[in-house]
């Protein structure tokens, strides 16, 4: 036991007062005439033992009162067995990521984590402050009943969630509580892919208790990737899926509720299904495997645009490489001639169009005037010489040898930068245009002579310039995505719509599925939400490793161990109030003994 005000223990010297009074009672100085002393003497004769015992008891009670008050004044701190734990602020981080849906010997892992959380809530008392934090960062505060109800409605996410975010929020609410005893409890499967990168600083110094399931996870079979080839089906196309797992399984491809293909796959083999759906326009589909212990990663979503190939109008002055690429696309059925999509140098700019910088620097002014006339908010600026590597989808590995600095006019809305040279934009896309900062010449960039040029061109035509518009965005649950140009609504997998603003960012829900961008009631693109492929790797950290990464957290096992480690049962607490209550009880006892006599008290 320690004391916050130890000098107050000097008050304990006052115990000498009742002691001295008791010892010197026969030598008291006050003398009072009282004729009936013979009755007092008779009382003392007849009740000598009782009087002596009562005096002793009174003396002890009074000494106890003085001691209790002195100890209370010294503000003691120490353990107080049998009276529960001190008030504690506890945030329970429960890992409801996709991997928590894995079934094991004791049922789904999430059920076991939930049971641990309930046991912890049962061990709490009304003085505790409690929060429940899930992997999507959602925080629920309240008493044990409220959190118990929240646990009852808890479902696994379709993705990994954000472990660092959950820990930060848990730490923040606990620290803001002002309660001296603070604790973050982490109930998790300790999946390496989610928790391996968590650092000590995440908890901000709040001590943590972790519960990690015993044993190794079972084998898991999962789809890790699904791509459509090409991005635009005309209407023929293919679905390619990558599966991980140690055994064979069946699969099927479903588009808009219709099964287009099915088959079986060997371990590690890619799934390839050539399909020709009847549906037209933007459609959503899934690739599904036969179910295993973790059902959530046996399904993966995709979106595709099905329809006629885009019709292109290649400018007569186009380069040889560009002509060859368009010819290849036309021959492959990926494009048609004679359409409205212009592929030309920027001095003949109009929309929709794929526009390249002029090969002749003298025509840059003409190009800028044409861009202005076409309503395209970009201008060519100073010429730069390379070579410089290009970064962006489909252009990785290529270099730019000469390019113009692309300058935005004002603050254009709904603009996507598809590739960069250094930090500057090299390909930008907006409402009905794709603008490239270099000419489609080998002297300006080696992209046209690379094998990736034709697919790159195909992707731009089908996703940026054809009717399909905004293309496909792949995302994970809960991710932030930018609303593409021309989109005014986002259609959820359940068909519900919400208004969006072009160029703004929206957060996707924590469920998997296909969302569609809409403009004027028509689908113009898609967001495909699938869980992280890493969630299918169920390898776990050991309890010690996770505890170490969380700043020497306590590793608990079993409900009792978790409660002890969390609430510090038997730990130190302020005993000031306890001693005051003791003094009050002793005062009451002293009053009873003094007034009634111990015989009557015992009889009562």
């Amino acid at each position, binding site marked *: 036991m320690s004391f916050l005000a130890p000098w107050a223990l000097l008050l304990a010297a006052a115990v000498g007062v009742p002691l001295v009074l008791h010892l010197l009672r026969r030598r008291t100085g006050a*003398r009072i005439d009282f004729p009936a*002393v013979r009755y*007092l003497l008779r009382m003392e004769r007849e009740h000598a033992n009782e009087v002596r015992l009562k005096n002793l008891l009174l003396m002890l009670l009074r000494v106890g009162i003085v001691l209790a008050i002195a100890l209370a004044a010294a503000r003691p701190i120490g353990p107080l067995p049998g009276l529960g734990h001190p008030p504690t602020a506890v945030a329970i981080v429960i890992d409801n990521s996709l991997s928590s849906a894995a079934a094991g010997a004791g049922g789904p892992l999430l059920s076991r984590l939930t049971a641990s959380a309930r046991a912890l809530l049962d061990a709490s008392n009304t003085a505790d402050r409690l929060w429940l934090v899930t992997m999507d960062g959602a925080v629920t505060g309240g008493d044990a009943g409220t959190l118990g109800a929240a646990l009852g409605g808890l479902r696994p996410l379709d993705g990994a969630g954000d472990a660092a975010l959950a820990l930060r929020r848990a730490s923040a609410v606990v620290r803001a509580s002002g309660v001296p005893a603070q604790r973050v409890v982490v109930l998790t499967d300790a999946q390496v892919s989610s928790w391996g990168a968590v650092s000590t600083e995440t908890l901000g110094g709040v001590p943590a208790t972790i519960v990690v399931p015993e044993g190794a996870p079972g084998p898991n079979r999962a789809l890790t990737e699904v791509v459509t080839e090409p991005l635009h089906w005309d209407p023929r196309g293919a679905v390619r899926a990558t599966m991980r797992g140690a055994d064979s399984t069946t699969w099927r491809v479903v588009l808009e509720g219709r099964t287009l293909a099915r088959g079986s796959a060997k371990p590690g083999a890619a799934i390839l299904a050539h399909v020709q759906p009847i549906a037209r326009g933007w459609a959503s589909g899934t690739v599904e495997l036969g179910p295993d212990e973790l059902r959530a990663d046996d399904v993966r979503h995709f979106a595709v645009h099905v329809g006629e190939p885009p019709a292109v109008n290649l400018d007569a002055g186009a380069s040889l490489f560009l002509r060859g690429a368009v010819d290849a696309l036309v021959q492959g059925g990926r494009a048609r001639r004679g359409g409205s999509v212009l592929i030309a140098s920027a001095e003949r700019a109009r929309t929709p169009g794929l526009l390249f910088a002029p090969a002749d620097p003298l025509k840059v002014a003409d190009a800028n005037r044409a861009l202005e006339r076409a309503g395209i908010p970009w201008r060519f600026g100073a010429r730069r010489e390379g070579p410089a590597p290009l970064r962006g989808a489909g252009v990785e590995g290529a270099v730019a040898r000469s390019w113009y600095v692309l300058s935005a006019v004002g603050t254009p809305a709904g603009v996507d930068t598809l590739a960069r040279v250094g930090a500057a934009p090299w390909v930008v896309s907006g409402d009905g245009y794709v603008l490239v900062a270099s000419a489609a010449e080998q002297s300006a960039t080696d992209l046209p002579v690379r094998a990736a040029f034709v697919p790159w061109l195909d992707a731009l035509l089908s996703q940026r310039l054809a009717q399909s518009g905004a293309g496909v965005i792949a995302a994970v649950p809960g991710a932030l995505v930018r609303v593409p140009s021309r989109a005014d609504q986002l259609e959820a997998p359940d068909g519900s719509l919400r208004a969006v603003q072009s160029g703004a960012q929206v957060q996707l829900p924590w469920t998997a599925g296909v969302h569609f961008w809409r403009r004027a009631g028509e689908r113009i693109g898609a967001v495909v939400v699938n869980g992280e492929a890493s969630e299918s790797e169920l390898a776990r950290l050991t309890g010690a490793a996770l505890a170490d990464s969380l700043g020497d957290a306590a590793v608990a096992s079993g409900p009792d161990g978790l409660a002890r480690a969390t609430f510090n049962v038997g730990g130190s607490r302020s005993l000031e109030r306890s001693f005051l209550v003791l003094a009050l009880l002793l005062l009451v006892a002293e009053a009873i003994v003094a007034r009634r006599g111990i015989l009557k008290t015992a009889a009562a």
Partner: protein
Amino acid sequence: MTAPASPAATVRADLMDPGTLAALGRLEVISRWIVDGLLAGLHRSPKKGFSVEFAEHRAYQPGDDLRFMDWKVAARADKWLIKQYEEETNLRATIVLDVSRSMDWKSRPQLLTKLAYGERLVAALSLLLIRQRDSVGLIRFDDQLRSVVPPKSRTVQWKRILTALAEPGAGQGSDAAGALSQAGKLIRRRGMVILVSDLLLDSQEIDDTVHALRAQGHDVTILHLLDPAERTFDMAAGESEFVDPEQGESLAVTPADVRELYGETVKEAIDEWRARFAGAGAFYEPIGTDQPFGVPLRRAFAARQRLY
């Protein structure tokens, strides 16, 4: 200086607080008020008076006292008739008052000392008896007999008693047995002895004397005066040494600590007195000095009524 208005006009004096009543006047006046109040509150007795009262005639027989011959009837009808009365003999009572030092004590200023209470009680009781045409005497004692007033029924007897009550006392002992024996001697035929005392004395001697008085045919009434604090030990004091002013004995106690046990002890003592006197055929009544005088007076009056 005008005398205060009689409290009986508003409140009966026998029901008033003793301390308040004593502050209103002298012993004589106060005693009259008390007796007036008491008699006003009494129901009429079925005995139809206590004094000599005509009952019936009977024929004269030789040897009858000629003082009781009804001469008027003899003159008118020439019949020799003797008048017979319901009461032919007055009660002879002796009041024995303890005036030892232990009686001269009170626990609170607003109370009367046991002695002052006893003196007013004796004055009122003797007046009451004299008004009933009884003979009343008084013996005051401490460690010796301080006053002895033989029983008489004349009105001036009350003045004698009042004078005796004013005599000194407060000795260091209480010779109650001697005083009671003296009272028995003063009453030559069957009568009543009333002891007014705090009974802080030798119980065995008292017991023997009371038995002796009862054997002589006397009716014995003991009015045991107690200060309220003597009953409850409700003393506003901390740890103190309590000293018997009469015997010098002492004991150091804290009243609050032993109050309960002390109360039990006093109750046991009173029960013992009651049993002891009941065994002797005496009437015993503990009287608190905070009780109105009407209470002990009624007790004593009831004892008188039992005799007739």
